[in-house]
């Protein structure tokens, strides 16, 4: 499939800050790329370059095959954008805001009005539509801004933290809208702080840190890359730890780790529930008393913390290179931020 969004080696500096330090990515047509990364990683800057709002120092980008730097105006007619901060006119009503955007997309006044009403209804803003946006809550503004990005049906959409500030009901509702758009063929680049959101919506995930893509893959690939399943055991007393480690070693696919003060032992394993059952039986045979035991699969949170080196508690993110993900770089020095 052709790439709907393609970026090659984007570099952007602001004074001393290298906001983008060679970002490359591609988003196949009809798919969703989730851009993850800590604050200041360069997510918004990437979105701003791709949506023609910012000129990079160097690099190349195309959207729907059109060169972003050479033909920005063509690109603008192909994209929908909802930026990190809601771009609405506070002194206009919700309805007037959407109508204005429609008219600026060259819709007739009548069509723009009709479309505005539709969107207001879908985004749950009908009741507030004749109030100025100044009186809207943060989440309402956010929704109005998202509606503005949907006034026409652009083939490529950019949503920069679209659900930040939305309550759970509206967040899930928005996810459904996004899923519908994607089902109907829209390509989407999405940045988010909610890993659950990336897990649910994104076909592919790119982890960005310090202006670089440091890992790329599906959510599963990334999870596998930082380590597969592990068994976590909390034993009753500190004295039981060595014996428990010995009991679990036959099942381990890597070195067990121990957190002394919580008496927690983590053992990388493979084989799922069957191994867990075996391990429980083994511990039981040896009469090792346990408080808690469970099989744990890594979450995107683990991936995020591990890759961006912002994990400060030990144990949970030991190095493990067995994964199949296409990560270009492993995690950084642990405790960098500690």
């Amino acid at each position, binding site marked *: 499939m052709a790439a709907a969004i393609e970026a090659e080696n984007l570099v952007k500096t602001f004074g001393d800050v290298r906001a983008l330090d060679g970002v490359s990515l591609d988003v196949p047509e009809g798919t969703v790329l989730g851009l993850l990364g800590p604050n200041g990683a360069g997510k918004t800057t990437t979105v701003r370059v791709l*949506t*023609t*709002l*910012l*000129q990079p120092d160097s690099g190349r980008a195309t959207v729907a095959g059109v060169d972003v730097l050479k033909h*920005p*105006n*063509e690109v*603008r*007619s*192909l*994209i929908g*954008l909802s*930026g990190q*901060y*809601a*771009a*609405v*006119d*506070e*002194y*206009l009503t919700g309805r*007037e805001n959407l109508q*204005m*955007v429609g*008219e*600026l*997309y*060259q*819709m007739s006044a009548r069509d723009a009005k009709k*479309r505005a009403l*539709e969107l207001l*209804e*879908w*985004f*749950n803003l*009908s009741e507030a539509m004749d109030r*100025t946006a100044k009186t809207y809550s943060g989440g309402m503004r956010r929704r109005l*801004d998202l509606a*503005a990005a*949907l*006034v*026409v*049906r*652009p*083939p490529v959409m950019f949503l920069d933290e679209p659900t930040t500030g939305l309550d759970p*009901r*509206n967040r*899930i*509702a*928005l996810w*459904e*809208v996004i899923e*519908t*758009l994607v089902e*109907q063929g829209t390509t989407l680049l999405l940045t988010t702080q909610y890993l659950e959101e990336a897990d649910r919506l994104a076909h592919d995930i790119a982890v960005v840190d310090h202006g670089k893509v440091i890992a790329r893959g599906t959510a599963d690939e990334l999870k596998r890359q930082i380590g597969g399943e592990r068994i976590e055991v909390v034993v009753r007393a500190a004295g039981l730890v060595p014996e428990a480690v010995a009991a679990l070693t036959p099942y381990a696919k890597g070195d067990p780790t121990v957190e002394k003060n919580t008496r927690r032992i983590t053992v990388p394993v493979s084989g799922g529930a069957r191994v867990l059952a075996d391990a429980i039986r083994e511990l039981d045979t040896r009469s090792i008393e346990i408080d808690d035991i469970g099989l744990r699969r890594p979450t995107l949170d683990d991936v995020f913390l591990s890759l961006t080196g912002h994990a400060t508690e030990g144990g949970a993110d030991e190095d493990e290179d067995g994964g199949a993900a296409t990560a270009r770089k492993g995690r950084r020095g642990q405790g960098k931020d500690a």
Partner: protein
Amino acid sequence: MTLSDTRGAIGGAPVTPRRGVAATAHDSWVVAKRNLRRMTRIPEIVVFGLMQPVMFVLLFSYVMGGAIAIPGAQPSHQTYIEYLMAGIFAQTVTFAVAGASAGIAEDMTKGLVDRFRSLPMSRAAVLTGRTLADLVQTAFILVVLALVALLVGWRIHNGVLDMLAAFGLLLLLGYAFSWIGALIGLSVRSPEAATSAGLIWLFPLTFVSNAFVPVSSMPDWLQPVAYWNPFSATVQACRSLFGNQLGPVPDSWPMQHAALVSVVWSLVIMAVFSWLAVRKYRRAAG
């Protein structure tokens, strides 16, 4: 109805951007409508825009009118207010600069400009729409100010057509100056700074002129500056058109051809500053 009801129902259609003068005019009108709406939501801006010139009319005419000698007349409230009004009108239209600069700066600092810049719309429309809306506001303020002036004794003596011509010159000057304001607003990027930056240079410009006192009362070296001031040309032209010129028109080329000089100045200012402002907006917009 909730968001989830939109499944399968999300309409809308891709667009192809239109180009050319018609598209620019259309987009400018859409943005102008937006700015005019905003003005009705924040009437304080218009009210304060009116209070300043009204206060000037009252203070200048009642406090200073008796002391300032106009060539060809005895100092009095009546003669001075006739002399004064062209200057007040001209000052009022140029002070509209501050509105444009603050408005543009606010648009640039708020996220809204990102919305505009991500749309396939004319690059000039954000600025043209602003200056056009300011023009409408200025016209409104001029009308109210004229009525107040009539109440306190100002009179025109040359008929309605000449009066309309004078207001035309004033609006042209105001429109040209609002492009200076647009450029300031784009350069300053903070609405507060933009308001002061938009106003501060207007004081020397409007005072080193024939607006409030006859230029002949100024030091010799300052007189050519005052006569060639674009502001003076408009004031002189309006004064003559209103029939408020009490003595002979000062013997200086730009004063003798004031209407022409006024139009030329306005067009030159408009051309230069709209070019600079649109270029700057494009750069900022990337």
